[in-house]
């Protein structure tokens, strides 16, 4: 610290002394004064056209050379980035190749295991579990007055679809796939789907966790008419209905809807009727999921 102070004193004092006494420095002082005046003139008259003109001139003079240099640096930067990208892609490619090799090996093992599993199943005479493949389709046509009757999807025979396949949709609130309808007509790249709410449709259902079988009939709205509920069955609003084992289209226990109202003694003495609200909302159905048995797809 002391040294620093001494250093300051050594610099300031002789400098000041020199500045006062140095006679040779008269040109320096004159130039300084001229430049000082110029600087002050620029500051004071910075809004005047003359200073603006000087500013423009300096800018254009400096800009052209600096812009050229800047362009060179930008080009260099881009070039370096390109090289970096090439190296990065090369490394990525190597990694993916390794990953691909690993997955190929795993697939080979998997195929061997599947074959072994098939052989064992045959030997033990076990029923083979059928896997399904989900085909995602978008709605292409929906009748304005028949929203709860049918719609057409943009997937057809080319995607492995055929008649009688179940159509489901994802219910975000329930975080589950729920029944929508089934395919009744299939074309090359489109299919017609009849909804479970169609009055011509009847779906075997049951009350969830209670094994009470009944039938869900379409109503032409977002409500289903649940018929053939045994009179003794304790069914109340809020009970969930799912697809029963009797359905040949949907998998059992696929969610269908929820009972909103029970109408006792309306149709007959032995059975009662209820109304149920479907889980899928016809207004918001834009995408449908079709479950296709894997063997059918493979065999295509």
């Amino acid at each position, binding site marked *: 610290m002391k040294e620093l102070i001494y250093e300051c004193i050594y610099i300031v004092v002789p400098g000041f002394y*020199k500045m006062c006494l140095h006679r040779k420095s008269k040109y320096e002082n004159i130039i300084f004064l001229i430049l000082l005046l110029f600087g002050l003139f620029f500051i004071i008259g910075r809004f005047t056209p003359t200073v603006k003109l000087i500013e423009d001139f300096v800018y254009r003079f400096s800009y052209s050379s600096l812009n050229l240099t800047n362009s060179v640096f930008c080009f260099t930067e881009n070039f370096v980035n390109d090289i970096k990208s090439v190296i990065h892609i090369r490394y990525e490619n190597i990694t993916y190749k390794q990953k691909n090799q690993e997955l190929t090996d795993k697939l080979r093992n998997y195929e061997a295991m599947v074959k072994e599993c098939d052989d064992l199943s045959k030997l033990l005479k076990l029923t083979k579990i059928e896997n399904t493949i989900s085909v995602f389709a978008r709605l292409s046509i929906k009748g304005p007055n028949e929203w709860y009757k049918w719609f057409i999807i943009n997937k057809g025979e080319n995607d492995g679809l055929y008649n009688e396949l179940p159509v489901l949709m994802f219910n975000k609130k329930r975080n589950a796939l729920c029944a929508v309808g089934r395919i009744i007509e299939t074309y090359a790249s489109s299919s017609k789907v009849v909804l479970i709410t169609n009055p011509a449709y009847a779906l075997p259902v049951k009350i969830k966790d209670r094994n009470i079988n009944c039938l869900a009939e379409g109503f032409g709205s977002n409500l289903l008419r649940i018929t053939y509920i045994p009179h003794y069955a304790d069914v109340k609003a809020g009970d969930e209905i799912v697809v029963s084992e009797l359905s040949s289209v949907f998998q059992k226990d696929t969610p269908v809807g929820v009972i909103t109202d029970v109408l006792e003694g309306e149709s007959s003495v032995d059975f009662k009727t209820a109304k149920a609200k479907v889980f899928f909302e016809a207004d918001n159905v834009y995408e449908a999921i079709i479950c296709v048995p894997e063997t059918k797809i493979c065999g295509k």
Partner: protein
Amino acid sequence: MWKIICNLLLYVFFSMIQFIFGKYLGIFGIFPNFILIVIAYLGVSKKTIDAQLMGFLFGLTWDAFSIDIFGIKALMFTIIGYLIGKFCGDFYANKILSQFVVVFSANVIYWLGFDLIHFIILGSESYMASFTDVSFYMEAVVTVLIAPTVFHILGMLYNRRAVK
């Protein structure tokens, strides 16, 4: 003639460093003030006129590129060039501590003058605004720390020319 060409090359080179490299090499917007170091070097090397003229030229270029008051940097760099040329002789130029002191003083003069002119022209709002900003101190520290290296390189350049 050689001196003029050399100074022009110095001008182009350091303009490039300050105005273009600063954009790419600045860390958190902090980049050393190379122009101040060059002016300080010229001043310390008894090249007072060069220091003033180069300071004015550098300042004018910087002013043209910035949106600040036109002429403020030209004025400040001219004053710094003159003051350093007057106060400091080449007797102290080789000492690192002297270089630190000179460049630090140049920084302080620069920012004080800068704020003073701002205060006079724009009013009290901008008074001492630079000194409340952390980046100002960081920039000053970086400039001071890098000064000996730049002094050494410029010294080599000028001394070699002197030997030739």
